[in-house]
């Protein structure tokens, strides 16, 4: 056995590693406090010169016992907790959870509520992808400007969410059997105005940065994810489609009323960081089409099934898995009921965590600066990774 490697003056975060096959390596611990890790995530990268030869992700710094709390609270009381899973996209989390409980209880949803859900989910997709574009470009070194543009648009969407639900981020909006509130005509007009001008923002943003030569050099060919590995690892969402796999739950499952809406599914050809960025930019334009159609065809009627039971809600024993295509991938909730007021088992299928499992494969052979961009393009939110 070799003696323990000496600590560098920087302490335990940087140390020399003896490896008989590779010579002298350096182990660098990035995180949990690091500006580029999008939260409290830690990567232990082993470097040979500047290249990463090993990368060990360390999770759990934001483990908030979401599933255990879900088993100890009633079905309805878990709804606010789902807001805090992926705290950028509370509306889609709400929908996935509501869908699982509705499957469990055999609860129908009125047509207008389905439309409202689609409108809110697509607005959330715009919100998430816009923020991702800002953070990703921040990681590449465009300090400030793209993120400022992205957050300007995020505020516009958050204003809509706040006007509808009363909260900017934690909307807690869906219920089992519909939505909590009916959007007013003013709100729908404001949403339509936002949708009409959002295309101009996307044009502006893409003109600003998409064909920038430095961005192309930093992202093209970096972190290539082969389609076979993506499928085997269970990667979902825009990351999977950037590798060229045509899998979108809105098309595959056809949940809600999505089969009524025509939209195209953007696919990448290379599976690199640039494709992951571009797939999201193109998805936003498709979302705008869905939003236009949904706002135009929104039917009248109630948004909540009057026969649905919220208080004293006890579904029959059984199990259900509800999943939707969230902005980050397949967000699913698996519930087992034993007939009581609480779920017997409550399990979340978090897209961020499962997409993150391929991080080492993407980063091997690249530099630390590239690892930061690759992590940014995976689009993780630690609330969902650690739950």
């Amino acid at each position, binding site marked *: 056995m070799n003696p323990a490697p000496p600590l560098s003056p920087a302490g335990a975060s940087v140390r020399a590693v003896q490896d008989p096959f590779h010579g002298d390596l350096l182990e660098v611990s990035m995180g949990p406090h690091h500006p580029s890790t999008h939260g*409290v995530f830690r990567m232990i990268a082993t470097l040979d010169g500047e290249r990463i030869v090993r990368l060990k992700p360390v999770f759990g710094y*934001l*483990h*908030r*016992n979401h599933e*255990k709390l879900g088993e100890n609270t009633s079905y309805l009381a878990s709804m606010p907790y789902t807001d805090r899973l992926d*705290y950028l996209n509370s509306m889609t989390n709400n929908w996935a959870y509501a869908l699982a409980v509705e499957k469990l209880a055999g609860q129908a949803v009125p047509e207008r509520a389905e439309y409202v859900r689609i409108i809110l989910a697509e607005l959330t997709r715009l919100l998430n992808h816009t923020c991702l574009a800002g953070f990703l470009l921040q990681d590449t070194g465009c300090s400030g400007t793209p993120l400022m543009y992205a*957050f300007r648009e995020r*505020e516009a969407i958050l204003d809509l969410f706040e006007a509808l639900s009363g909260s900017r981020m934690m909307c807690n909006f869906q219920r089992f059997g519909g939505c909590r509130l009916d959007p007013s005509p003013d709100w729908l007009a404001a949403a339509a105005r936002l949708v009409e001008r959002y295309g101009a923002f996307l044009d502006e943003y893409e003109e600003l940065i998409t064909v920038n030569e430095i961005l192309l050099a930093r992202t093209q060919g970096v972190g290539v994810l082969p389609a076979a590995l993506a499928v085997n690892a269970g990667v979902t969402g825009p990351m999977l489609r950037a590798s060229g796999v045509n899998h979108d739950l809105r098309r595959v499952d056809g949940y809600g009323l999505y089969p009524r809406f025509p939209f195209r599914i953007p696919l990448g050809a290379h599976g690199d960081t640039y494709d992951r960025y571009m797939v999201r930019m193109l998805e936003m334009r498709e979302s705008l089409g869905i939003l236009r159609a949904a706002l135009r065809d929104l039917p009248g009627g109630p948004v909540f099934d009057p026969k649905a039971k919220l208080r004293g809600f006890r579904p029959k024993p059984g199990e259900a898995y509800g999943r939707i295509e969230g902005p980050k991938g397949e967000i699913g909730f698996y519930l087992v009921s034993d007939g009581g007021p609480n779920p017997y088992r409550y399990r979340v299928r978090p897209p961020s965590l499962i997409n993150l499992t391929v991080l080492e494969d993407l980063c091997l052979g690249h530099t630390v600066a590239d690892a930061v961009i690759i992590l940014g393009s995976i689009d993780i939110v630690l*609330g969902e990774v650690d739950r």
Partner: protein
Amino acid sequence: MNPAAPIPDPTPSPAAPVPGISDAERAELRRQGILLTSIEELYNWGRSNSVWPLQFGLACCAIEMIAASMARFDIARFGSEVFRPSPRQADLLIVSGTVTKKMAPQVVRLWNQMPEPKYCIAMGACAISGGPFKQGYNVLKGIDRFLPVDLYIPGCPPRPEALLHGLMELQAKIRAQPLTGPAAPPHLRPGADGGECVIPDFGPHDLQPPHDPARWQPPRLIRTE
């Protein structure tokens, strides 16, 4: 904010007034274009308007903290837009989110690495008390069990305006700090040490110690018979 309220004086009346001059005389001099002030007031005015926070996000509240630094809320108006990635350059630790037991040692270590004078804001319900996740087995029930918190901002998450209001309250607190005597910040008291906070260990069952007994004690029932 009440629009009719008068705009606050950028240099509010100090804790210790300039000796030998009344406030009325001082106001009259200011009208004539002469600013009379004390070193204490000037020093505190300077440092209260350049509070540099640590760029440190824990959970949901961090997104609102980022939003506060963006164009719409523009924390730069209060001199705090310089989010520093290194604790050595930061004056303010905003604990923005749930502190889990695995993360608590790191948060305390970051606080210990910050130079005096330093301030701590507990942002959001989780940092104050554990918030909605209080019953979780892995959640620290309030960062004030280990750190001296200067300001609590309630909300889940607090709006960016609430963070700005908290920052203004912190600025008022800094301006009221005397530079001499026992209430002065530790870096100005000769021989005084701000003191390092106890860094807990992430043990197999709980944090060791579960709280810093010098800073926090569990509430005790007082019976009046």
